[in-house]
């Protein structure tokens, strides 16, 4: 590698990492937090079989999972202004990522809810608890433990998917890289560099996942009595 490319890489490192810290991470965290709320509510109305709302939840999951994320971004950011609805790039990205991720995670949470043995529910009824009390205190905590690894998976996928927000002018890591490439004409080195920074983010999340799993596993760990 010649010195010019090396200098470009070291110069650009902070210029890429900074939008990563100020844009990619907030975008991921905010979107995922909202997605979790959507996912739990969507999964619960399906699990409980609330009539009408259940069909609505299925329809939502069907539409969102059946259309490309990029198309959804374009519809919200470039399409809605046609109806007079103009949303700034960052909130538009948050809305799309939250709705998109929420649909996938809803299926994860629903499957996890269904994996909790029915006896847990029955035992709750028998000690006098109501449906909602049992859900909140017994079933949901157990389901979230089961759902934790696949949800971590979704979170890691989302970190990388936020690069699509560059298409709707959110100045996150990938767009920052594109700008430097336009100035320096070193696409190979710079795109590999930004790829490595994504890898770094994902690695941190993988480590956090492992720590999280360890803590969540406490009540299932078999110890000698």
């Amino acid at each position, binding site marked *: 590698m010649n010195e010019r490319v090396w200098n470009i890489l070291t110069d650009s490192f902070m210029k890429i990492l900074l939008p990563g810290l100020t844009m990619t991470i907030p975008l991921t965290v905010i979107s995922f937090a909202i997605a979790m709320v959507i996912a739990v509510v969507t999964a619960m109305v399906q699990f409980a079989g609330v009539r009408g709302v259940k069909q609505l939840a299925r329809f939502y999951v069907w539409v969102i999972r059946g259309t490309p994320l990029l198309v959804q971004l374009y519809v919200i950011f470039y399409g809605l202004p046609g109806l007079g609805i103009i949303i700034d790039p960052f909130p538009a990205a948050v809305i799309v990522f939250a709705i998109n991720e929420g649909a996938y995670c809803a299926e994860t949470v629903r499957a996890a809810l269904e994996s909790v043995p029915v006896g847990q529910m029955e035992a709750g009824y028998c000690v*006098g608890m109501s449906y909602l009390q049992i859900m909140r205190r017994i079933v949901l905590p157990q389901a979230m433990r089961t759902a934790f690894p696949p949800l971590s998976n979704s979170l890691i996928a989302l970190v990388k998917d936020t690069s699509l927000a560059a298409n709707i002018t959110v100045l996150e890591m990938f767009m920052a890289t594109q700008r430097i490439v336009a100035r320096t004409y070193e696409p190979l080195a710079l795109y590999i560099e930004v790829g490595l920074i994504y890898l770094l983010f994902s690695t941190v999340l993988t480590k956090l996942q492992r720590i999280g799993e360890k803590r969540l596993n406490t*009540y299932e760990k078999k110890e000698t009595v």
Partner: protein
Amino acid sequence: MLEIRDIQKSFGALEVLKGVSLQVEQGDVVAILGPSGSGKTTLLRCINFLERADAGTMVFDGETVSMHRASHREIAAIRKKTAFVFQNYNLFRNKTALQNVTEGLVIARRMAKAEAVEIGKRSLDKVGLSDRYDYYPSQLSGGQQQRVAIARALATDPKIIYFDEPTSALDPELTGEVLSVMQQLATEGMTMLVVTHEMTFARNVSSKVIFMEDGLVVEEGDAKGFFDHPKTERTKAFLNHSNQ
């Protein structure tokens, strides 16, 4: 104190309960015996509304309710006065032994936490688990888990405890510890309705026996009479078979 009249239940085309009636007086220990598939467990589950019966009436603690039309509120009111011990324990897996016992007090009955913990500890002490308060179900043996389940049942001060084959999932050497706890409860006058295969328990502990087959009560009576002088041929055959 508990009276069931003409309870019926089908699963699809399969008639599981064909009109069963029974009566439990305060302090009774009633054992429900019978071969597999006779409807014993379904009967017990219908009595606590875990299954919805197709017909039947229940008189519990002076209140009459329809077994197939009882409202959520009626069911909730009845359940607060009863307790259920399952064949496979069904302890809350994400709660410790003590939390399993206090959950129904703090959450369902809005009891102050300190008071609930005190009752919880007392209940666990009673079933011989004073040293296992903070263990999760996965860290306990089957017999210990079932004793936690019994402590959980006791803690809510129920008028009656239903047991659904409480020892069937246990190794033979662990059934003893559960049966002796149940025996102790019987001595203290707890009202119990027990579906069981434990003939020795039924003979020595229960005050009354109900023998079921094919969704019907074939014979019922006090335990001594039932075992020493069975009336029907079917009961004789069943007892002979289980004595072998």
